[in-house]
């Protein structure tokens, strides 16, 4: 079977992998990003993550761009605001780019802001390999079947996830009911918090009552009676999972090695003297 978007076989698509595989694959790269102090490694690793998502994730460019907008805004915000809180003595030796009131903004401070923003961007880009290609139910299944999380806890979580549309509907009904009673949208922070408080109480009460009814129904069907249980859908660690982890680790290592050879890697956080 072939996916029509990029002609990638479904068996090679990221959504067909075990959810835990994707976490294992990106975790070393995320840890490495946390240690970087330069822009090249976060840029290279986020490019790798986005390329993997576009080719194997079957994620459309529009969806990916939409997911990236808030993170790009955060990275830009870091570039603007981080220089304002950087220790002066760290960047005093670098040239002053401009003066903001009485505060001189040094080139070094802007550079630190850029690296902090790109680190966040790389972090989120790497986690998108998981976020954009994984169903929460599959993740919960994998936690039960492969990570040996007790199945009663895992299935309770999965049941709660199925409540999401119901709770969303409930929230709409509560808000409509409050508007009918003349307590609709309020302006200002205090008003918004009051609306949130008045919404939270009936929503939580209703959710708890639903949970109790569901629990009775599950108990009535002998949920939790046996130490193990069978599953309609089995999550597996197949060969393609192993291949993906090895390929991603290899690609990450090659990128880091290439940056180091080119002298673009910069010192890592634990060896950098500040």
């Amino acid at each position, binding site marked *: 079977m072939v996916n029509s978007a990029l002609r990638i076989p479904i068996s090679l698509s990221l959504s067909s992998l075990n959810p835990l595989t994707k976490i294992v694959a990106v975790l070393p790269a995320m840890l490495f990003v*946390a240690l970087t102090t330069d822009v090249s490694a976060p840029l290279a690793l986020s490019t790798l993550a986005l390329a993997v998502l576009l080719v194997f994730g079957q994620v459309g460019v529009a969806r990916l761009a939409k*997911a990236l907008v*808030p*993170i790009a*805004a*955060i990275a*830009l*915000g*870091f570039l*603007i605001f*981080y220089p304002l*809180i*950087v*220790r*002066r003595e*760290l960047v005093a030796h670098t040239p002053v780019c401009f003066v903001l009131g009485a505060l001189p903004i040094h080139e070094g401070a802007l550079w*630190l802001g850029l690296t902090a*923003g790109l680190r*966040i961007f790389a972090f*989120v880009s790497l*986690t*998108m390999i*998981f*976020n954009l290609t994984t169903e*929460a139910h599959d*993740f*919960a299944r994998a936690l039960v079947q492969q990570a040996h999380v007790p199945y*009663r*806890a895992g299935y*309770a*979580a999965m*049941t*709660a*996830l199925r*409540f*999401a549309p119901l*709770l*969303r509907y409930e929230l709409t009904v509560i808000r409509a009911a409050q508007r009918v009673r003349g307590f609709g949208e309020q302006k200002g922070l205090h008003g918004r918090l009051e609306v949130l408080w008045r919404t*939270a*109480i009936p*929503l*939580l*009460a209703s*959710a*708890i009552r*639903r*949970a*109790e009814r569901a*629990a*009775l129904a*599950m*108990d009535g069907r*002998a*949920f*939790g*009676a*046996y*130490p193990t249980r069978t599953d309609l859908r089995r999550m597996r660690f197949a060969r393609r999972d192993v291949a993906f982890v090895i390929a991603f680790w290899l690609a990450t290592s090659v990128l880091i090695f290439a940056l180091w050879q080119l002298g673009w890697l910069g010192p890592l*956080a634990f060896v950098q003297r*500040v």
Partner: protein
Amino acid sequence: MQLNSVDQPVLKQTTRPRWSTRELLTAAVLAMAFAALLVPFTYLYAAVLSLGILARSALTGLFFMPAAFAAYTLRKPGAVIFVSLVSGLAAIPFTPYGLLVLGIGALTGAIGEAACWLVTRYRHFSLWRVVLMSFATGLVEFLLVLFSLRVSQIEPPMLVAAIVLSVIGFVVVGIVARFLADAVARTGALNNTALGREREKRV
């Protein structure tokens, strides 16, 4: 499963489960409801994250809300971490951070669980103990994430202000969660939880 002489299934259960299905479902659905309420705040958090360490510190406490609520209502070992994790899991598809929300949930849950055990022993939930539990969680969480903030690059007075803001944020959220739980308990929905039973005894 074994079969007895009349071919009836015999259920073998070695230990009595410490959590009933009702408690598990209540905890999971509470987490789900808080995820629904807090998702808009994750966008606000994303917006203020770039404004600097102070804004971030002031808002991080919000993610302690499900944990504090669960600790106060369920009063069971594991409730705090379970609710935090499920809340993070439910929020993954709807937030700009995705998997990182689960990480924040795991960290807040683990620290909150330890603080709950140390301060309340899952039994005593006076306002002062809830304040102390929230204070400890806020302080430890901030210290643990310090490394990711590149503390050596930031002005020391800014760091102190951030710690104070973080702790105040957690304490306020802890108190709000306690009042919210009391308000929900007045509707009768929490009658089957430890908080509901305690209220019945008081009456």
